[in-house]
């Protein structure tokens, strides 16, 4: 974010937004402040409320209760066409009966902007998304990626202080998606507009965002930078949703300063305890787990768990192993290219430093909602 341009974006405040459909709460007390010019991603599995939140901000869905302020002004009850917010849809939503140029000019025509200014602004917006040569084509003559770039141009051509994007790259293939992510980042930098981006793809969220709000079951589980979410997940759901992780569950014993988990005869300890009564689990990132052959003293760590290689994946930059632990659960380990390699079915030992284990309250829904 360029601080010099930050004033061009609008701040957004959601305060205890609830949206109920009969007895079902699609949004259950969502509160979120988005700073002017920020790139905020709403991340979560399908049905978690992230798209509903976007629709509420856009004005497509009304709220059951709560406050919504855009640029400091309440917009509750203001219809979508009066909100002056750009929206990019997953399905592009270009008007099939209009050329690219007329599609992009559409919001300017509605605002009664004169022809010469209109043409200049359409050209500028199309240039920004590198579609300047396509003004006379029809949407059906363009590829998916090109259509989405035109849709982006159409959503920014009227200089909205806020741009909402609803899984805009969801229908595109991986290479194109990665390239467009960088394009969207560049456009965000150039415009200084506030961006709110909805995705279920955690990698995409990490690439794009200043901050990420993780949604689950109509609530926000955690808001933070990608690093915060990865290193310090507030809940088991967040820890599992962002990045690879290993979750250790077992018979727990806590004293004042440490927690021990007994897993199928082996005991691991972490030098912390969980506040409250919830039963603790340990969450470990793949790079915090060292892998070695049994009895072969791996340097790092005090905790050891034995297991068997259940899956070995060669990634180019290294290898990823899925290790079946004695209690039947599985652990994800990444090992560098220079490390030893292991074959399927081989007995191994996992070691980790207790300080690297995140202690989190167990939450059975964290597993089932990961779809």
């Amino acid at each position, binding site marked *: 974010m360029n601080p010099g341009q930050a004033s061009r974006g609008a701040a957004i405040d959601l305060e205890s937004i609830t949206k109920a459909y009969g007895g079902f709460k699609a949004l259950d007390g969502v509160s979120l402040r988005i700073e002017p010019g920020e790139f905020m991603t709403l991340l979560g599995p399908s049905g978690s409320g992230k798209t509903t939140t976007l629709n509420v901000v856009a004005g*497509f869905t009304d709220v059951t209760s709560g406050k919504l302020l855009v640029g400091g002004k309440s917009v509750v009850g203001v219809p*979508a066409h009066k909100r002056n*917010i*750009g929206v990019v849809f997953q399905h592009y*939503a270009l008007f099939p009966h209009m050329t690219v140029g007329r599609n992009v000019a*559409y*919001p300017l025509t509605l605002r009664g902007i004169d022809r010469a200014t209109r043409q200049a602004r359409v050209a500028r917006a199309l240039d920004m998304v590198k579609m300047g040569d396509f003004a006379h084509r029809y949407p*059906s003559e363009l590829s998916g990626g090109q259509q989405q770039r035109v849709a982006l141009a159409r*959503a920014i051509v009227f200089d909205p202080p806020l741009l909402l994007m609803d899984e805009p790259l969801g229908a595109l293939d991986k290479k194109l998606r990665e390239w467009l992510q960088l394009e969207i980042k560049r456009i965000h930098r150039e415009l200084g507009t506030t961006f709110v981006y909805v995705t279920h793809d955690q990698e995409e969220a990490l690439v794009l965002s200043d901050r990420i709000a993780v949604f689950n079951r109509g609530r926000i589980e955690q808001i933070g930078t990608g690093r915060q979410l990865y290193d310090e997940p507030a809940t088991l759901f967040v820890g599992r949703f962002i990045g690879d992780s290993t979750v250790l569950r077992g018979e727990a014993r806590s004293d004042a300063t440490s927690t021990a988990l007994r897993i199928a005869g082996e005991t691991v300890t972490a030098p912390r305890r969980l506040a409250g009564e919830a039963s603790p689990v340990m969450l470990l990132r793949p790079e915090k787990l060292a892998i070695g052959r049994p009895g072969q003293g791996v340097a790092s760590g005090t905790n050891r768990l034995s297991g068997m290689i259940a899956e070995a994946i060669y990634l180019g930059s290294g290898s990823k192993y899925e290790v079946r632990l004695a209690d039947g659960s599985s652990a994800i380990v990444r090992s560098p290219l220079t490390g030893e390699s292991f074959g399927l079915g081989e007995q191994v030992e996992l070691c980790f430093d207790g300080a690297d284990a995140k202690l989190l309250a167990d939450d059975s829904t964290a597993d089932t909602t990961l779809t």
Partner: protein
Amino acid sequence: MSASEPTTQPAAEGRAGWAWRPYALTLPALILLAAVIGYPLLTIVLRSLSEPEWGVQNYVWFFGAPINLTVLQRTFAISAWVTLVCVVCAYPYAYLMTAVGPRVRLMLVLCVLIPFWVSGVVRTLSWVILLQDSGVINSLLRSVGFSGVRLIRTQTGVVIGMAQVLLPFMILPLYSVMKGIDLRLMRAAESLGARPSRAFFTVYLPLSLPGVYAGAMIVFILALGFYITPALLGGPRSTMLSTLVQNQVLSLLQWGRGGAMGVVLLVATFVLLALAAPVMRSRHREAGRR
């Protein structure tokens, strides 16, 4: 919405000799059309030029008699009115069909089709009952204090009856086009600043026009040749060309004159469609892109 990748014609070359094969599938239809449309049409054209003797005397007669030209003009005018009434009635109806759930939609389709399954004569006679001076509509009007309105034997009555008969031909093409319109486009238009009415006129309406054109064309052409309804509901001042043809052929046995009338109607229809085609085609081309 699928990205349009250029598709390659599979093995188009080297098999050119077989290219006619798909067309062979149309043979049964072509034979049928030739027998029941082509041959009679040819006969009519020939008779219009050969009876009672070779020459264009039947056409000279047609254009020489003011009554013929008046009726021809009226035929087109009534057909245009019927088309207009059908568009106005069918558009919201077809839209409703796209907006409701499957069960209600089935009901709506049945409401369109059930009258369609009843014979045209029966339907027209029921309109006689409804429209006559002592009929249901006039009784209702009188009971709320209006004096009676003359509907039967008037052009209005003919238009009402014909529009009802032809309505399904407008609703069904409209519905088939409308159900393909992505309603999310309306949401996109609103996000760009269009109030709902503006979004309708700039997005939905243009995208539905192919259905309007298709339905209008079918209704208009069918209306031009209507015989039973105008004959039963109309009076002398709402005679359509088909009645004159019937008169010439069956009452006066003037096959040549009847044929000439048919040919004039056919040619006039072609001319009108040719004039309308450029408008429809360009619209259709754009709206068809999705």
